[in-house]
């Protein structure tokens, strides 16, 4: 047989009971939130404190290492000076030297029958030369050597003839050779 349940309490009391339960629930939530806030704050502060202490330890370790490095100051000075000199020397000897390259190149391109009467260059890619060729063939050979990329190793960009003089038994030419 089914049981019959009858609520004999007045409806106002049921409403009050419901409201109390609601307030109690809100209060519980509030307390939980407050606990969380306090826990998080305490944890963050605690963790921050621990990290600060760790950082202090690391800093004191650095200070200790720096003291050790101070004791090795002489070695550091030697190494620094040596590296600095090596770097400077390396930079200087690696600089291109068109004056030297030009002298080596031009003198190697003078064919038989051509005399190099003068050569000059001043820290420049331009080299002035005066030659005397005993025949037009010799002069042609020289010019070929100067302008042919196989013989000039691709280093000559321009050959400017300044002056040609036909002498009694030779041809004198003043020219400016421009290197790359």
């Amino acid at each position: 047989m089914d049981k019959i349940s009858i609520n004999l309490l007045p409806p106002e009391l049921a409403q009050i009971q419901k409201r109390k339960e609601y307030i109690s629930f809100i209060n519980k939530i509030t307390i939980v939130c407050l606990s969380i806030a306090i826990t998080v704050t305490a944890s963050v502060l605690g963790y921050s404190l621990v990290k600060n202490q760790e950082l202090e330890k690391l800093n004191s370790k650095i200070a200790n290492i720096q003291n050790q490095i101070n004791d090795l100051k002489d070695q550091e000075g030697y190494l620094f000076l040596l590296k600095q000199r090596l770097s400077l020397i390396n930079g200087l000897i690696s600089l291109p030297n068109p004056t030297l390259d030009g002298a080596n190149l031009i003198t190697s391109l003078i064919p038989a029958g051509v005399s190099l009467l003068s050569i000059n260059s001043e820290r420049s890619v331009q080299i002035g030369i005066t030659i005397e060729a005993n025949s037009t063939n010799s002069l042609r050979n020289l010019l070929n050597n100067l302008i042919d990329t196989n013989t000039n190793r691709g280093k000559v960009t321009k050959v400017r003839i300044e002056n040609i003089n036909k002498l009694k038994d030779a041809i004198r030419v003043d020219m400016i050779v421009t290197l790359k």
Partner: protein
Amino acid sequence: MKIEIPPGLEKYKFFLFPIIVTVFSVLILIFVIIPQIYNLFNLSSKMDETNKKITSLTQKINNLNQIDRDLYKVYIDQMLIALPFDKDIPQSLSQVQFAAASTNLQIVGLDVANESTAINGALSYSIQLEVIGTLSDLKRFFNRFDEAPRVIRLAGYELTTSKDSSVYSGSVKLTTFFSPQPTTLGAIDTPVEGLSAADITLLTKIEQLTEITPIISVTGSTTPGKTNPFE
């Protein structure tokens, strides 16, 4: 003491506690938690940096401990022959003279410039020579400075000859380098690297060149400048 709640607010009195707690929590969040979290990030990055610095400094100590002071003094002496602290004109002239003698070139005059010019981080001065020699001698002389321990470079030339002669005469300009002592010799926090393979090669080359070339210096020894540059 009992706080009197105004009659209109009586029904809200149960929400007072949650509201105060919420405000308190928000204030804690804004003024404590967020700044502390931000601070933690900063601390974390600082610790990373500090750890890196410790590693770098420890490495530096290891590198410095490997340095043989006596050997490095010898290396520095050799480097100071190649690139002295000051002009050291007698030393450079001795090397020019040695180069000329070994290539049969005759030096009939010379002029050393007073001015110094900065080139590639170093200072330089010019030596102008009046020379007499064959083209072959001159070429060997020009290239001889590749084998000189001092850094000297050919800067210019003006040479002439007559048609029937093989002897050239004229001027040759050389640039000689030096570099004053640096004002600081490293800093504690600056990491140091040992000598690289390229450094060792260059050192060996200069060492060999120093051995085959007689060196005359203003100090009368092979080492111009102070014996100990750190004093």
